[in-house]
């Protein structure tokens, strides 16, 4: 019989809980909506407090169990995000999960948040290992070969801003609302992508690393020179800036992904697949250019539904299922780990130091 996994996620801005069965059925997936909160702060996301997560976690868990028409006693295991993320958020999730596990005597699995994203195409589309994964969101951007539930090979990623961040900052710079992704995409629809020539950083260099920070700076310079020349920005200027910016992001992602495909194909996958996850994958221009790459290179293109592309707890429960299947206990000992690169074999790239494993 299928086992039931309770997933808990609180590593960034959202508090989430979900129940997923080991045969891949999502019985519930609750993400506590903070839309009202965001609006009150003019789109700035204030939710960093461990306290705020703590207040919402038990409600999220309770609602997830209710919607799944189950109870804690019927749950077989608990999976929780143990990192990477904001220390306060991760800690409150881990403590909540530890409380439940101790109280019920059920096993507890510490899951990497990024592994949750990276394994989602198996939950939604039953994709077979190894597949190529582009993880592209507000805070992350990396290209990975996913070879197993705990086996990830990082091919490259952003060396500065993530694309989602670049969209948000572009929106801010142009006086558009937040989050930036949808508003920039909407404005770009009526814009001419070729009026402004924005840079494609790092395309001239080998490898799969990307950079988006300079693109944002270039956009601001164009904006400023338009304002100086004409005392303001027209709707059309704004649309053209958005279109040019979006095209540049899509180009960089597509070309770096194309390079990653070549590396991935050296793995000789039986059914080659490229999957995307993260909120930025919702952008239709980016999606279209990735699809083109996939078609051109003979890969199947998989994009999970948006609710499962952005932060959620179903992916954490599912990562628990996958680890359990191979007899892996998750992060051991289970501690909150704010920095936790997926690919432990690679030299740790992010702020690593003498103390090694901390990164």
């Amino acid at each position: 019989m299928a086992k039931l996994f309770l997933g808990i996620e609180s590593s960034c801005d959202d508090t989430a809980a979900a129940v997923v069965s080991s045969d891949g059925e999502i019985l519930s997936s609750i993400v506590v909506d903070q839309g009202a909160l965001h609006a009150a702060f003019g789109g700035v996301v204030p939710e960093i407090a461990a306290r705020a997560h703590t207040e919402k976690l038990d409600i999220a868990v309770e609602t997830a169990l209710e919607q799944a028409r189950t109870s804690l006693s019927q749950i077989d295991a608990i999976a929780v995000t143990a990192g990477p993320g904001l220390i306060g958020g991760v800690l409150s999730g881990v403590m909540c999960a530890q409380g439940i596990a101790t109280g019920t005597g059920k096993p507890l699995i510490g899951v990497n948040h990024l592994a949750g994203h990276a394994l989602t195409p198996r939950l939604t589309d039953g994709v077979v290992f190894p597949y190529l994964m582009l993880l592209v969101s507000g805070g992350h951007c990396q290209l990975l070969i996913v070879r197993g539930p705990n086996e990830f090979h990082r091919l490259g990623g952003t060396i500065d801003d993530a694309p989602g961040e670049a969209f948000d900052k572009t929106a801010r710079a142009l006086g558009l609302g937040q989050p930036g992704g949808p508003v920039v995409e909407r404005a770009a629809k009526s814009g001419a992508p070729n009026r402004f020539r924005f840079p494609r950083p790092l395309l001239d260099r080998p490898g799969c690393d990307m950079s988006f920070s300079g693109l944002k700076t270039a956009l601001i310079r164009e904006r400023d020179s338009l304002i100086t020349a004409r005392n303001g920005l027209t709707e059309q200027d704004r649309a053209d800036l958005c279109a040019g910016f979006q095209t540049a992001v899509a180009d960089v992602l597509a070309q770096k992904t194309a390079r990653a495909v070549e590396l991935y194909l050296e793995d000789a996958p039986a059914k080659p697949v490229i999957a995307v996850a993260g909120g930025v994958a919702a952008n239709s221009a980016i999606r279209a250019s990735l699809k083109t790459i996939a078609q051109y290179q003979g890969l199947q293109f998989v994009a999970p539904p948006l609710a499962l592309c952005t932060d959620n707890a179903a992916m954490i429960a599912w990562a628990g299922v996958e680890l359990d299947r191979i007899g892996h206990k998750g992060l051991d000992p289970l501690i909150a780990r704010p920095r936790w690169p997926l690919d432990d074999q690679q030299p740790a790239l992010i702020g690593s130091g003498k103390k090694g494993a901390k990164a």
Partner: protein
Amino acid sequence: MDFSATAFLSDAHATDRLGAELAVQIMPGDAILLSGQIGAGKSHLARAIIQSMARAAGLPTVEVPSPTYTLVQTYEFASVPVWHADLYRLADSSEIEELGISDALGTDIVLIEWPDRLDNIPENALQIAFMNEADGRRIHLSSHADRWNSLSYFVESLDA
């Protein structure tokens, strides 16, 4: 005597040079506050400082991701932790407490973007304000700590 200087950073290379100089002069307990609009070069300078410190510690390829979403990134290659924070998303100064920055101030090395969110500016902090000018950036450096006067000579060389 207070320290105050202005300089023109004509390109990214000039910013990198300033970062390398700051990396040499920075000491445990120092705070550097970086202010200016989006795209003014705050993160670029913070990245240059951290990467230069990392290279000095024998780590040639340390990535310095943007802290905009994570709010804080910490690095442990110096004698004390190096903090890189972006306070833009914070709405309330009480949230700064929860990030642990207050505890780090005065002991660790702390680089802060959007420091206007701070209730209290650390007394001896080095403040660097960025403004776009022509194709580069005009920066204004200031501190109540006179030890930063040692930067004057270097800053003058940037303009040359």
